[in-house]
């Protein structure tokens, strides 16, 4: 019996997108710190600009180091192509600006990163794009919120910070029946734990800064196209199916077929908005992607130990982690996230905000900062930081209470992490108790 012999995930993490340098033989991906590329002749140059030939023109639009990262992320997610961007927020903006203009409407999960919530609530409306927020656990709510002008369903694989899990297969079906694509922010899960295209998503965005990079040294984003959405059949996406005057009447769906979306995102989005990734950052982020499978394995081992520890701790009120039986999405997590639910989770400490603050300040190994997905363990208080700009009602809808603490579990020895959490919990609770009269 014959079998396909294609490179597998761990191999792709190390090799996808790169051939050893043909001139120098360099094994590592070189940093092509160059803004521009010499054309062999004027005719070749004109052909490159007119998309008749393949190659690089100017690093705002494409760069050889960035291209390796782009191919690698597309390979790991099972997509057709990627555009890497200056940040995750740039990727989100690029995706939406490629799909719609003024008059467009988005149906989004209410449980998303605070920055994404901000751009939907406060910034896109200035450009005529409205968003309706719905409960990520309620597929009917997505269906009910779809309007004639809806152009996108958006959500996160693991909601932020409550780890609500969208029923992506069901919600994708609803979207596709309405002729609308689904974009998923897969930052928390990474393709190692979850591949959204296999569950019906059409577009993926990442903050590559987080687990994909894993080292806290470079900001970057990625927009990845499955190539599977039928833009022509939908009839709702004129940016992809009508002649584009900005490229001499180019019809992206006609000329590029499955690659229409990602080609437009680059040809228009990077050309005009210009939120490109620097090649040095692409190099740094590639170093992280190379070790993604081994790091994620360790992240999951440590997370499971810490979740179990906190879940049994007297000073902890509740732990929100889908692998725990009491989590509302426990069953769904077992079905679509069998390898794990990521290394970011939240818990409530008995005693509310003051004890929570005292706990964070007493931690020694966990770093108090606004990031997740680092090799080092991190902690933050979402209500006063990452989600600070959200109104009280939106905070409640997103399940963000005053005493909620969010951890991003790193790669340290899990015994050391547990010991740090334990001492900080006990000390913070003890400090908050009224002093007994001497």
């Amino acid at each position: 019996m014959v079998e396909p012999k294609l490179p597998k995930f761990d191999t792709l993490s190390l090799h996808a997108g790169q051939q050893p340098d043909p001139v120098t033989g360099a094994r590592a991906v070189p940093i092509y710190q160059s803004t521009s590329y010499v054309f062999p002749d004027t005719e070749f140059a004109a052909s490159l600009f007119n998309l008749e030939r393949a190659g690089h023109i100017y690093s705002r639009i494409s760069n050889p180091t960035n291209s390796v990262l782009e191919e690698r992320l597309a390979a790991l997610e099972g997509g057709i192509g990627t555009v890497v961007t200056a940040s995750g927020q740039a990727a989100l903006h690029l995706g939406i600006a490629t799909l719609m203009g003024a008059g467009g409407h988005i149906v989004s999960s209410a449980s998303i990163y605070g920055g994404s919530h901000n751009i939907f609530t406060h910034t896109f409306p200035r450009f005529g794009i409205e968003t309706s927020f719905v409960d990520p656990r309620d597929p009917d709510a997505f269906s009910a919120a779809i309007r004639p002008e809806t152009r996108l369903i958006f959500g996160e694989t693991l909601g932020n910070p409550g780890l609500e899990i969208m029923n992506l297969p069901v919600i994708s079906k609803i979207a596709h029946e309405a002729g609308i694509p689904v974009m998923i922010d897969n930052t928390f899960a990474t393709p190692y734990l979850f591949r959204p295209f296999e569950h019906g998503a059409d577009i993926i965005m990442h903050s590559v800064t987080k687990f994909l990079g894993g080292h806290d040294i470079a900001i970057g984003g990625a927009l990845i196209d499955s190539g599977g959405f039928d833009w022509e059949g939908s009839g709702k996406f004129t940016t992809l199916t009508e002649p584009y005057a900005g490229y001499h009447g180019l019809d992206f769906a006609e000329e590029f077929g499955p690659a229409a979306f990602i080609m437009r995102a680059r040809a228009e989005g990077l050309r005009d908005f210009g939120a490109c990734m620097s090649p040095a950052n692409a190099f740094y982020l590639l170093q992280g992607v190379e070790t993604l499978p081994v790091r994620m394995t360790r992240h999951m081992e440590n997370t499971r130990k810490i979740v179990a520890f906190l879940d049994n701790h007297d000073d902890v009120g509740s732990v929100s982690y889908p692998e725990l039986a009491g989590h509302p999405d426990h069953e769904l997590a077992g079905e679509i996230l069998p390898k794990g639910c990521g290394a970011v989770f939240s818990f409530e400490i008995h005693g509310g905000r003051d004890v929570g603050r005292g706990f964070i300040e007493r931690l020694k190994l966990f770093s108090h900062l606004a990031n997740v997905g680092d090799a080092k363990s991190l902690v933050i208080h979402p209500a006063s930081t990452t989600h600070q700009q959200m109104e009280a009602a939106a905070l409640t809808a997103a399940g963000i209470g005053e005493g909620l603490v969010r951890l991003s579990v790193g790669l340290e020895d899990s015994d050391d992490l547990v010991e740090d959490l334990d001492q900080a919990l006990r000390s913070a609770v003890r400090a908050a108790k009224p002093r007994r009269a001497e």
Partner: protein
Amino acid sequence: MEFEIDGHIVFANTGGRDFDPSLPTILFVHGAGNDHSVWQMPARYFAYHGRSSLAVDLPGHGRSGGKAPATVEAMVDWLQRVVEAFSFGELSIAGHSMGALVALAAAARMPDKVKSLGLLGIATKIGVHPELLAAARRNDRLAIDLITTWGFSPESQVGGNLVPGVWMTGGGTQLLERIPDGVLWNDLAACDVYEDAPSMARQVTCPTLVLLGSRDLMTPQKGGHALAADIADARTVVLEGCGHMMLVERPNETLDALRDVL
């Protein structure tokens, strides 16, 4: 653009410019399970360099209506009706894989009309592994994965695309996933039983490019060289390290080779 043949809509990409049949025209014919989009760069290049490009979707493929022709001969019949529907000033045909078999036979059948020919990824016989055929008949995903395994060189399976950010095997896979059930099997079966490539080659008199990949497992270059030997005015170009999907794996070299002959 769209036009009608046999009562069915035919879709053809014209490379981003309006089609003008009075200009020298190049007809581009895609391979099994593919569509016009595989010719994106050549179609666009020639349309902007004094030619008219007509990258057709065969019946039942891409945006064309009708039923996929069951044999290579039926595809050639259809292509001949396309040629007869237009008053081409001057005509060249380029085909890839199954499309190359069609282009070859069309040039043999219409020697007075076809001025030059481009044959990409072709051999005297395009045999298809029985397990691939069986998987395609079942509409089993295995068929797509086997084509990806054998269609792209080992290097291309790792990547390094000249088109920035596009994952080559991902693109190939998506193209095959788009076609209706049964069409891939139809095409592969048509290739598998077709035996006439050598006799067609002996009838071709126009200048002909035979473009081969040294790592092509679908149409190994040995069969391509044998076919080229039967063509009176053939120019053979071998892309070292390239697999069967030269339009994706080596787009610029493929365009250069086409440009030199068409």
